């Protein structure tokens, strides 16, 4: 039943977005919103969030709440930079993954076998990780050579390769340059078509191999978790560990493995931050992305595709915050217009309650647009959190976390 309805809803959304984008061409500053550089920045910034979110997915599907993702990511950034300095970038990535997994091992040991509260352990892992990397920096970079120090590493030489698709975005094919179809379309500046081409081009040109792997991990996670016996056991650990135990599943081992994978993914997210950013480790580099990953997990209703959607949304918000403030301001108008269109649609379909709510929100956004000249970018950085709070508050029925998420498991104890 839901296939056709969901399909219709999707079409409605796509039409709304296209309509709004074409109107927005009349607003100064809005053009930057759909340029290929914006979408490529959005992709780049989404990847660490996506990896943290997938990390959270594995852990929470197995019933272990993981707010230690941030700490595991921090360990990942440090070890990735250190490994990159000594053995080259790809070994850096491997070490970053190992660092995250190490944090996962601590969290797993403490929560699974010792049954400490998951949140408590997560807070402890975060604090411990922050301390450990500071200490490691003090030892490894104490001489202050090459710009390294207590809060940052020297620049990592070398980089992860990038992928640009031939024909679509002008990538090289057998060493020869090819056509740049999307780039040409974007430069024509035709409304909607040019915008779409711009967004697409950002997604297929100059994409790091790490991003390619990360995107590939989304279907891989979905396959692993829903199509293999390993995934079934893992989700069993989150839905009903006692039932799994009674069927002979080694629940401890499954949960520990899940948290290890979780840490490894968060660590890889840290490695992406190092190699896709300035090419160094810096203190505070993660900037709460582990927590944003958790937010994407909730927003995405504990499902891989949902996590990806959340990561893209939050990454795009992040990318916009880095652009000029006029574009950010124009975004207010876009959101207002989109909401107004949706509200009008609801009015036509005589859904009075929904129409009223949406139209009021639209009026609010449009008023904000009219009343201000710029919005501080610091406020835009809070968007992922506000969106997550709104989803938690207003769409709780659509959310379905694993039934025994966060509950300590003891074989003898019956529920």
């Amino acid at each position: 039943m839901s296939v056709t309805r969901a399909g219709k809803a999707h079409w409605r959304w796509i039409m709304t977005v296209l309509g709004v984008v074409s109107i927005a061409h009349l607003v100064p500053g809005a053009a930057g919103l759909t340029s290929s550089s914006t979408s490529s920045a959005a992709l780049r910034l989404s990847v660490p969030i996506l990896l943290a979110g997938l990390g959270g997915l594995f852990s929470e599907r197995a019933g272990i709440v993981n707010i230690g993702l941030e700490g595991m990511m921090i360990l990942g950034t440090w070890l990735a930079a250190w490994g990159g300095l000594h053995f080259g970038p790809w070994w850096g990535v491997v070490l970053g993954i190992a660092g995250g997994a190490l944090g996962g091992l601590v969290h797993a040991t403490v929560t699974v076998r010792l049954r400490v509260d998951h949140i408590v352990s997560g807070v402890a892992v975060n604090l411990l990780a922050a301390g450990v990397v500071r200490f490691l920096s003090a030892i490894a970079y104490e001489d202050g050579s090459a710009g390294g120090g207590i809060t940052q590493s020297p620049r990592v030489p070398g980089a992860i390769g990038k992928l640009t698709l031939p024909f679509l975005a002008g990538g090289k094919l057998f060493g020869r340059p090819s056509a740049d179809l999307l780039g040409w379309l974007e430069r024509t500046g035709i409304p909607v078509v040019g915008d779409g081409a711009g967004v697409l081009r950002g997604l297929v040109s100059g994409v790091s191999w790490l991003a390619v792997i990360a995107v590939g991990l989304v279907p891989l996670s979905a396959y692993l978790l829903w199509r293999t016996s390993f995934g079934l056991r893992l989700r069993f650990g989150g839905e009903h560990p006692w039932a799994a135990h009674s069927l002979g599943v080694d629940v401890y081992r499954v949960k520990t493995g899940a948290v290890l994978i979780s840490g490894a993914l968060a660590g890889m997210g840290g490695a992406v931050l190092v190699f896709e950013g300035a090419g160094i480790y810096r203190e505070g580099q993660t900037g709460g992305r582990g927590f944003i990953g958790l937010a994407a997990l909730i927003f995405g209703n504990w499902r891989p595709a949902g996590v990806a959607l959340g990561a893209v949304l939050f990454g795009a918000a992040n990318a916009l915050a880095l652009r000029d403030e006029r574009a950010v301001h124009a975004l207010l108008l876009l959101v207002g217009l989109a909401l107004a269109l949706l509200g009008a649609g609801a009015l036509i379909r005589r859904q009075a309650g929904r129409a009223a709510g949406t139209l009021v929100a639209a009026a609010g956004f449009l008023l904000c647009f009219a009343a201000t000249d710029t919005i501080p970018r610091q406020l835009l950085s809070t968007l992922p959190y506000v969106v997550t709070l709104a989803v938690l508050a207003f769409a709780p029925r659509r959310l379905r976390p694993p039934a025994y998420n966060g509950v300590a498991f003891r074989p003898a104890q019956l529920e």
Partner: protein
Amino acid sequence: MTIRRLALRLLAPGVALLAAFTVSSLVLAGTGHSPTDTWSAMGRFGVRPESVVSVLNRAVPLYFAGLAAAAGFQMGLFNIGVEGQYRLAALAAAAVGAAVSLPPVLHVTLVLLVALAVGAAWAGVAAALKVRRSVHEVLSTLMLNFVATGLVAALLATGTGGAGGTAGGLAGETKLIPLSGRMPALNRLLEWIGLPFPIGSRLDGVLVLAVVAGFAYHLLIRRSCFGFELRALGVNPRAARAGGVNPVGVTVRTLLVSGALAGLVGIGPLLGNSYRYSIDFPTGLGFAGIAAALVGRNHPLGVALASLLFAFLDRSAQILDLTGVPREIVLIMEGVILLSSVVAYEVASGLIETREARLAASIDECP
């Protein structure tokens, strides 16, 4: 039986400390530094009079944050939003404190009230989300932390946080709070009692407030009707509800109390040290306070001891710069103390439970 129980309880923090010492000694030895020299240098530096004063000043914000977290823990509520609550409260208190001019005592009182109110209000958002929309408080307070961080940064950047941000207040900081709004030092008092006071150091008056808050916390949680209901909900929510406790009201009030206590975290640094809120206002106190609450087992004295321990480690680490040992070793130590004490408490309570279960079983068998 009770003595064994007490011994188990006291054994846990002891084991945790031992584990922290062992791990950090191994790390030091592994990186080519002498553990014994390091510990003795830290110990000697940490008990100097000026160090003691510094430790007390450092412990106060941790203690407030610890009490804030502990109030929630007692009810099984996890307020990890202490961080955001205190930052927003400190900014508001700084802005209001700089904007008004009042007689000395009133001025400080007003600043305190603003901090309490803003901290409670920010926690109140989480409370409303919990009781109205059943949003788990861990998620809401976690998200609200980041919203608060962004809000504080935006207010500081645009200058509206500085009550106009004009006349002396640069972008990125509030104006200075005038003398009448600052917390007096306790130096005079100590000299009057006859304690030798180290020259150049300043014992902050907020310490008195912390002691008062500790007693108030004890009375509220252990001796009041509200505290009983709160703890009843924490131990066994179903039994408490069956006994007529209204979980909604208690949840809201607990989070408000927790937020108000969190609002006081920034008061020490604000009224005793910087007198303004700026970009480099101390951060991370909220999470450190949560650590203190966990290590101190939510008991007002335990949290005080844990806060003093963390403050002592922070202070005594400063000497390590002279010895060439990275002072960040104490960060590892604090992390290990936290992790090993929560594990030790969990293991200890598990042991107690098994013992009690065995005892109950044996009574059943031979009446």
